[in-house]
Structures are given as C-alpha cells and as structure tokens.
C-alpha cells in the first residue's frame, strides 16, 4: 500500500464543499432548490483547462478516492491504486475531480440533509435521484471549477454507468469515456439482489419508514445485512475459496459446542456488515440501489443500445473482469458490440481475475498496465 509520504501518493488531501443555489430540476420531475457537493481534487488544472478528469464512484463509494485525510488515516482513498503521481490516472499530468454523488451520505446533499421546507432531515422524502441527475449536477460543478470539457470521465460499476451517461447526454463534454466492470443496464438478477438488500433494511425495526434520524435510531442490522448480501455478490466463488477456504476463526468442528464455531468467511462478512452500517446511511443505500435499478442507457431508444450510443463522440475504454458475475463480461461486451457496430473507437479487454466485481478496485495482474497504457493518449 502507498503511504502518505511515498512517491506514488497524492499525500494529504482536504475535501471541500461547493454550494449551488440555482434550482436543479430532476429526472423524476421534482426540483431541488439548492444543493451542495463535497469533493476532492488531485493535481493541477492546466491553463486551458484541458487536463481535467472526472471520477465517478460506485454504490458505496464517495469523494475520497485517493490520498489521506490525515496522517492517522489507516487506509488511503478507495481508488488509490489507480490515482496518484505516475499511476494510471497520473496526477502529475491530470487534474482529477472526485465528487460525492448527490443523494450520498458523505457530505453532499442527501437524505440525511435538512429539508428546508420542514426543518427536519429529508429521510425517505428526498427525491429519487437518477443517473442523469448526477451528470447534471457534475456538469454544474465542472462549470464552477472552470472546466468546459473533461479529458476523460472514468467510473467503475455504478460509476461506469455515470461515465456512459455523460458520453450519451453531453457528447461535446468529454474526449474519453472509461467504463470499468459496468453494464448498459442491470439484469433482472442484479435488480433482485438489490431488492433483497433493500428488504433487509425495510425489515429492521429501527428503520421507522426511513425517519430514524429524529428518533436517534439507526437500522444497523438491516444495513449490515444488506451489505453482507451485496459484498457476497462482489466476490467470486473461487476468490472466496482462495481467501477463506473452510478455515475456522473460532471453535473447532470436533467439539460439542457447535455454536462456538465461526468460519473465517462468516467472521469476514459480519465485520463488513458491521463496519458498513457505521459509515453509510440506509436512506442513501435505498436511493443508490434504486438509481442503479432504474438505469438503462437505451431507455429513450426502445432498448436499442446502438441508437442510444449513435451520437457519442468520445473514445471508449471498456474493461470487464472474468470472475465478475454481478456485472459480467457479457454485459460489457454488449456495450462494446454496440459501439463497434456504430463505428465508435473502443478498446476492450476482459481481465483474468479471481476477485469478482471488486477487481476493478485492486491491482490484479494485467489491469493497471493496460489502464495506464490507455491513459497515455488522454489529454494529448
């Protein structure tokens, strides 16, 4: 791992908030009178603002993509393997903008923010944000930062969908679109997993129909269970076997006290669930999973992916990971085939990796060298 003082780290970073007072009309028809976005930037914007890169985060991500918030921080931002001096997204060359999505729970306006109309937290009354809305809010942010065109918009998973939406909604706004471990739309199986996760939250007595903030309650159990299900689907069967096998963390299988037996994999999932419920908001989880479910880049074109992509002008890098069954390589290939059929410039590879959907966050062999090789042409 890159330490705060190492050459490959962006070092200490300070997040900041941009406030937008102009009302934002959302895809659902409702309007947000004002909103705030929290973000981090790495690197320096050049004189003609031609080296800006937008990072779009995934379901549980946030604006803290690289570097450290303090010297005491144990882990760097979620995509530190890819962002930093000399890395794939080279902060010596690029000005990198990483923003917490609208509706998020790490500082941007979201369900836990105060609804000006009531003086209480929005909770479940916060508008259902869709991916178009994120793009729109990010465009306003770009203008605020003096950027009128991204050298690249980059995202994995849900973030890849945002990058794709950028390429379709605002073709003149980006040169390159990087879509990692993503899909042009969710499959029925994917929506089903999201529904199980939501149901876990809804079943928690502390959920209180989403109005738990005022009652000093947190649906920790439901949110933790949602995360356990989600996390399970981000790993592959082989990856889990490699990592945990049938190892025991506590107890022994020969003993009479079967209750005392805890497999490593159980302990891991419990930990992931418990950790998540302390750092994430249940209403945001509901909102983000719904945004995922609703997304279909071809929705306005009767499901015709080719027509949806016909007006894009960006060059595309699409990567999938062989053991990713949540956003399978076939979904990426569907996107690539539509781009090829439309004569769009596209580079695609399916990276051999055991780590499932989460591979795009990890330095799996072959992945970052290819990503780096592609980024060499960006901003030139």
């Amino acid at each position: 791992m890159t330490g705060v003082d190492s050459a490959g780290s962006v070092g200490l970073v300070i997040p900041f908030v941009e406030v937008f007072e102009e009302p934002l009309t959302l895809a659902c028809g409702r309007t947000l009178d004002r909103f705030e976005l929290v973000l981090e930037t790495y690197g320096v914007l050049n004189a003609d603002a031609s080296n800006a890169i937008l990072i779009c985060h995934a379901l549980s991500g946030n604006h803290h993509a690289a570097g450290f918030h303090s010297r005491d921080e144990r882990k760097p931002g979620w995509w530190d393997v890819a962002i930093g001096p000399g890395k794939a997204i080279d902060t010596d060359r690029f000005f990198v903008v990483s923003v917490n999505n609208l509706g998020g729970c790490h500082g941007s306006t979201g369900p836990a923010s105060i609804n000006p109309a009531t003086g209480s937290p929005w909770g479940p009354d916060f508008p259902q944000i869709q991916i178009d809305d994120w793009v729109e809010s990010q465009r306003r942010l770009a203008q605020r930062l003096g950027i009128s065109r991204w050298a690249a918009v980059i995202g994995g998973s849900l973030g890849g969908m945002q990058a794709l939406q950028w390429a379709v909604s605002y073709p003149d706004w980006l040169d390159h679109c990087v879509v990692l471990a993503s899909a042009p739309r969710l499959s029925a199986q994917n929506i089903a997993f999201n529904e199980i996760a939501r149901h876990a939250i809804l079943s928690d007595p502390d959920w209180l129909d989403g109005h738990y903030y005022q009652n000093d309650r947190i649906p920790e159990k439901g949110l933790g269970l949602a995360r356990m299900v989600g996390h399970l689907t981000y790993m592959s069967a082989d990856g889990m076997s490699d990592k945990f096998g049938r190892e025991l963390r506590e107890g022994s299988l020969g003993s009479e006290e079967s209750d005392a037996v805890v497999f490593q994999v159980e302990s891991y999932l419990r930990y992931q669930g418990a950790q998540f419920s302390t750092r994430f908001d249940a209403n945001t989880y509901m909102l983000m999973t719904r945004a995922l479910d609703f997304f279909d880049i071809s929705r306005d074109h009767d499901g015709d992916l080719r027509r949806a992509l016909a007006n894009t002008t960006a060059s595309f890098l699409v990567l999938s990971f062989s053991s990713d069954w949540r956003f399978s390589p076939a979904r990426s290939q569907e996107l690539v085939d539509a781009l090829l059929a439309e004569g769009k410039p596209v580079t695609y590879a399916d990276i051999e990796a055991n780590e499932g959907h989460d591979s795009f966050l990890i330095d799996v062999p072959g992945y970052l060298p290819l990503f780096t090789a592609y980024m060499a042409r960006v901003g030139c």
Partner: protein
Amino acid sequence: MRLDLTQIKRWIPKGSRVLDLGCGDGEFLAELEHELEVSGTGLEIDLHNLSEAVAKGLSVVQQDMDAGLPNFPDNSFDTVVMAHALQVLHRPHRVLEHMVRIGGEAIVTFPNFGHWRCRLYLGLRGRMPVSKVMPYSWYDTPNIHFCTVKDFEHLCDSLDIELIAKDTVGGGSSQILARLWPNAFAVTAIYRLRRRGG
C-alpha cells in the same frame, strides 16, 4: 517490417477503415494509421500484446476470432486484414466468410505449406517440416491448419470468395519463381479477396 506487410499496404486506400484481425502488438496497424491515416481497429486475444498495441494509441478489442465475428455488421470496414493467423484458427473457413462479409475487401497472408522446402523435408525425411518459419514440433504448435496455395484457392472458390489479386514472398532470389509457381516457391502467400458478386 515483414515483407508481406509491406505488400499489403499497397492495397489499402488512404483514410479507409481497417480491421486488423490478430493485430499482435499493433506495429502494423500503427504504421497504417500513421502513414495512410486509416481509422483502425485491432482484434487481439493476448492481453500483453493488446496492452502494447493500446500503448501505441490504437483501439483494440480483445476477442477470440474462432468464436466468430458476428458482432461486426456487414460492410462495417473497408478492409479486413489477417496476417499470418489463418493457420492457427480452429475454423479458418468460417473466419474467411466473416472477413469478406465485414469488409468490402479482405487481405489474408499465410505461410505456404506447399513450398518446395516443406515438400523436400517431408519427402526425404518423412517427418513434419520444422524450419525457421515454422519452428514448432507437430504435437506442440499453434499452427493447426497449414495449407498450400492451391488448397487456399480451392477453399475460396468453394466459399464464393473472389480473388482480386495475389502476391507472394519467395525466399531470397526465388521471388520470380514464387510469382511463376507460387504453390511450390512462395514462402508466404498474400491474397486480396472479396465476396463474389458482393
């Protein structure tokens, strides 16, 4: 630059759309983009090669040709090139059909197994030829579908593929012989093809 690639270049119009099947590290396609301003797409299965090609600024898609190329629409490229890959394919005839469907024209090069050295090797030693051009033993080789110039032309005929032009690379001084008797003297055969009546 390999001789067959230099000869291919003459058949590729400036500014055209080129699909390079099995583009390797992209050296040839990069040269086509640079010299002829073609808009190129490479197909490559090996990730390491693909990364090298991407580093040259190319658009490259990782795909196994043997699984077919149904994702490419008819006439979506001006020229589809496949240099020295025919002999490693499981179903070379299917790939050829796709090539002339996807491209207005197709260009194929392959090592000619009918070359006199191959014949002599097999005839005198009674064993499968091993040479500098074909360095593998029969049991451990990527080259599973060798053919001769005659074999290839026969296949094209049966697939309704028209030979627009052909060229050869002979060994050293035998270039003239290779042109006269390609089946016996061409080391590498080079074909420019299109769908008959297409």
